[in-house]
Every structure is written in C-alpha cells, then in structure tokens.
C-alpha cells in the first residue's frame, strides 16, 4: 500500500450538517433558474443570454476565423492564384493539389498572373485549418474564409475543387464576410541574418505589397517572410 499523509477533516458546524450549504446552493441555482425563465420569455431567438439558438440565432464569427478556404479574385475579377504550389508545400496535412496552367491569349481578364491553377483541390476532410497555406501564399490568393457549415453526407463532396473555392469567395463577398485588411505587425530587425539579407526581402515585400489587393492581405502579417519566398524558384 502506498504511503499517505494523514488528513484531518476539520469541518465547521455549518459544513457538518449538510443542509446549510445545500440550501445556499439551492438558492444559487434558483437565482439562475428565475433569471433564465424570465429571459426565455423574451422575443426573438436569442432569449437566454448565454445560449445561441444556432440555426436562427448565429453567434458572431470573427472576421479572421479560419473556416472553409476560398480562392480570391482581385477587384477586376481576375483570379489571383498563379498555381505556384506553395500552399501545397506548406500544408502539414498534404491535402492541397495544385496544377499550374499557362495563361493563353485572350484570358488576360480571367487570370491576374501569367500562370494560373488549372486544378485546385483541397481535401477538406484532411485539412486541419491551420492557416499555413494562407500565410505561405505569395499572392494572397488562398484565404481561409468564414464558412463553417461544412458537413456532408459523403466524402466526395468534401473535396473542394476550384469552382467550389471560387464560389466560396463569391458567397463570402456577397455576405460581406471577407477579411478586413489587416495592417502587418511591426517586425524587429534580424539579430544576425542567417540565410539571406533581410533588406532584400523587405524591398521585395514592399514592391509586392503594392500589387496585392488590400483585402487579400494575409492576417498573418508575415507577408515579409512570405514575399521573400517568391524570389525563390516557384515550386514545381
């Protein structure tokens, strides 16, 4: 048998007779009961203040909530994605498949870059919504949107293709749920550059920043680092 310290139980009289504290507890639950009964007769779906009646009464979702992905368009309605595959590389769950296509003549108003993604598939059932793809995207083209009602009857419809991702964007835009532009947080100068000189990155970033639409600016604020990566050779 294990050693055990001797514990002396020292109860006050009130504690000893059970009923005093139980009565106090009853008083507390009664208070809640009466409060909530009163509240439940209020009009509208949000009656009891601590309970959101989901389908009718939705809780406010943070604008930066990491929900279903969407492929962004810029103001001209052009697709931002260039199909570089950075997101697929950064994904810890390896759930993104991107294939790059070359922009043909006459497609300039459809795609912003010289290349585009011919297929873009995200397996939502693998995805862990970590946001790594978003912060890895050099163009701010892939963003985790506000959608959270994702349940499906079968697995196939959980694989989002490009159309679905663009539809997500249009839906979010129609509902005005796109992320507001976020100002990047100030970054401390590097102590000792290890790989690359930071100044070059910064310049690259500022140059790129002008191009990227403001609303697509990643919440990560990590864009300096992200942009720095575009100077590396694009994947595949």
């Amino acid at each position, binding site marked *: 048998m294990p050693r055990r310290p001797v514990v002396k139980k020292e109860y006050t009289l009130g504690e000893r007779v059970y009923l005093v504290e139980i009565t106090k507890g009853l008083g507390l639950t009664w208070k809640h009961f009466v409060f909530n009964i009163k509240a439940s007769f209020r009009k509208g779906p949000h009656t009891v203040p601590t309970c959101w009646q989901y389908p009718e009464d939705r809780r406010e979702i943070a604008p930066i909530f990491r929900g279903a992905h969407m492929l962004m368009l810029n103001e001209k309605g052009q697709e931002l994605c260039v199909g570089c595959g950075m997101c697929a590389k950064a994904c810890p769950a390896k759930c993104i498949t991107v294939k790059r296509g070359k922009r043909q003549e006459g497609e300039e108003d459809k795609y912003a870059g010289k290349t585009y993604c011919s297929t873009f598939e995200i397996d939502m*059932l693998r*995805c*862990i919504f970590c946001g790594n793809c978003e912060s890895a995207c050099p163009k701010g083209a892939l963003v985790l949107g506000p959608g959270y*009602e994702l*349940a*499906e*009857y079968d*697995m196939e419809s959980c694989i989002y293709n490009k159309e679905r991702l663009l539809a997500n964007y249009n839906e979010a835009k129609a509902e005005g749920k796109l992320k507001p532009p976020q100002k990047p947080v100030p970054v401390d100068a590097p102590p000792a550059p290890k790989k690359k000189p930071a100044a070059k990155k910064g310049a690259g970033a500022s140059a790129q920043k002008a191009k990227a639409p403001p609303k697509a600016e990643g919440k990560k604020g990590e864009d300096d680092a992200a942009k720095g990566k575009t100077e590396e050779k694009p994947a595949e």
Partner: protein
Amino acid sequence: MNFQAIQGEGWLLCKAEQLINWGRSRSPWPFPYGTACCGIELMCALASGYDMARFGAERVAFTPRQCDVLIEAGTITKKMVPVLKRIYDQMAEPKWVIAVGACACTGGVFRTYSTQQGIGSIIPVDIYIPGCPPRPEGILYALLKLIDKIEADHPLYKKRQQVVEALEAGK
C-alpha cells in the same frame, strides 16, 4: 387487409412512418465518442453556449444500447479500432454515425503508423464534418442534416421491402 396499404402507398403506413420519423428525429440521443480535440468542441456543443439538447439530443449516456447517434469526435487509432467497431455493433437499430473532424473522417494530418485513416472503412458513416475541430455550430449543422436524413427515411416501407425480398428469394 388492404393490400394497397401494405404496399407502401397507404395512408396509414405513411402516417405511421411520419410519426416514427418525427419521434426519431426529435430525440437523437447522442453517444459522445469523444477521443480528442473534437471531443472538447462536442462538449461545447452539448453545453450551455450551443445546447444540443434543444434538438432533443440529450441524456448523454455512455452505453451504446441507449443511444441513437454515435458522434465520433476525435482521432481513432489503430489500437482503438476494435473498440469502436464493438461499440457500433452494440448499438441498437436504428443507429446513425456522425464523424466529427478531420481525424475521424480521414485521419487528417496524422498520416502515421498508428492512426486509422478514417472510420468510414470500419463503420458506416452518415455525416462527415470537416474541420479540426469544427465549430460547435458545424456540429449542430451536421445534426440538423442528420435530422433531415432521418425524416426522409422510410422505416416501415424498408422493412416491408426487406420482408418481400426475403419472401421472393425464398420462392
């Protein structure tokens, strides 16, 4: 006996089916098979903020005999697979399964030696919820979808069909 009614087009059968579906869809008692992170969000969905009990999904019991919906929230490891199978087998018909979160649906980020890559290969799943973990709203949405599915079911007609098929096979 009216033959028409038994064939599944009768008014009585239809009403009875509706009544049964109404009862079943409004009282889906959950079996909260919460193993990991999704279990916490499932807990949130059951608790005050979202209150799954509004849809009758109450009386959370951990005995498979008394539950209708197996809410599988969390990673199923290969060590756990036989247990899950067993639990599902012990549930009484009719039973439904909701796979909550990436791990339950496909194994998610855990493509490893010890993780079952989705419970779909072990037990039939009715609803898949992506998310890691999904918001409680997402779980409630799935529950509503499941309720829709239950309401569209034909419990008596199906049974009748099974009997007819069995009889025909016997002939």
